[in-house]
């Protein structure tokens, strides 16, 4: 089947403003949007720029706005998309070229919440034990692949780039509620300010955009509640 794509192209060396370009490619209905981009880049225009790595919904490289909503190009089937398939870069980041955005600020915020285990007691000789219930407490937020789909779907982030964003809060949640971790206070102090969790307006765009099905708004709400209660 012939599939029509409209791509918001931008080359900083040539263009002042992004502009739409139309491409028609032969694809199978079971192909993904990423396959369409690969066909365009491989057969029609090698200058097209986008990120992709595993192409199986695990690495989180190819998040972009597809038909008005953040999705991973490698998880969006062509047969489920209305034509023309319109693709834009994620919103709120500086566009470097076509669908490649500057993820630098995103990872700065990720690092700010200290997304690693902070030991609270002397290192045990063997593994740190945890009950199934304790593990269940933060199970949802372990699924994040840092694609940025949640953060760039959030109106609070569009209007205020200083907002730490849903993805960083999800990462903080993953450790704050981990019984083995002792760094909750440090993370909560990063999140308990104007650019932290309180910027969340419970819009739920993050929940709808997350390709891993994480209930991001719930995670943010739980962090808000912990701060309001004064601790875990």
């Amino acid at each position: 089947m012939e599939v029509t794509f409209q791509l918001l192209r931008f080359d900083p060396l040539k263009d002042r403003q992004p502009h739409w370009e139309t491409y028609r490619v032969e694809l199978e209905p079971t192909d993904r949007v990423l396959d369409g981009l690969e066909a365009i880049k491989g057969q029609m225009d090698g200058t097209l720029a986008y990120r992709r790595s595993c192409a199986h919904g695990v690495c989180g490289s190819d998040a972009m706005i597809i038909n008005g909503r953040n999705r991973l190009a490698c998880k969006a089937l062509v047969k489920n998309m209305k034509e023309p398939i319109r693709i834009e870069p994620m919103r709120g980041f500086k566009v470097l070229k076509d669908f490649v955005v500057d993820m630098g600020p995103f990872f700065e915020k990720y690092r700010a919440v200290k997304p690693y285990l902070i030991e609270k007691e002397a290192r045990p000789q063997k593994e740190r034990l945890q009950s199934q219930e304790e593990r269940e407490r933060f199970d949802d937020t372990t699924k994040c692949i840092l694609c940025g789909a949640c953060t760039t779907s959030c109106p609070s982030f569009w209007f205020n780039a200083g907002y730490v964003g849903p993805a960083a809060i999800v990462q903080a949640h993953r450790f704050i509620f981990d019984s083995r971790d002792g760094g909750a206070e440090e993370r909560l102090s990063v999140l308990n300010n104007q650019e932290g969790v309180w910027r969340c307006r419970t819009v739920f765009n993050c929940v709808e955009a997350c390709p891993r099905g994480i209930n991001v708004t719930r995670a943010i709400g739980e962090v808000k509640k912990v701060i309001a209660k004064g601790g875990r």
Partner: protein
Amino acid sequence: MSIYRGGIGQWSWTFHRLTGVGVLLFLLVHILDTALIMMGPHWYNKIIRFYRTPLFGLMEIALFAAVLYHALNGVRIIVIDFRPETTVHYKKMFFIQMALFALIFIPVCIIMLGHIAQGLHP
């Protein structure tokens, strides 16, 4: 760039903002018009006469809708903030909110329209 196609949450948030700003603007105007009494009865009575026109009656219905929506949506957000586990039902919660909105708004709207039709608008 196109409009981001967010879900129910995006649009309920947009209307929450719009109704909030709308009600705030009305309150500012309302403070100004009641302050006109300080300039004597002439200007105050003039503005009150305008408030009794059918056009303003319709605007009052819109004001009631804005206040009601803003209040109900606010309660929904408060519930979500205090009980994050309710987020799994956020779509259902919005539909319940809108059902409550209709349940309250429709009869009140009929009464207010009746007042306008009968010229009894206060």
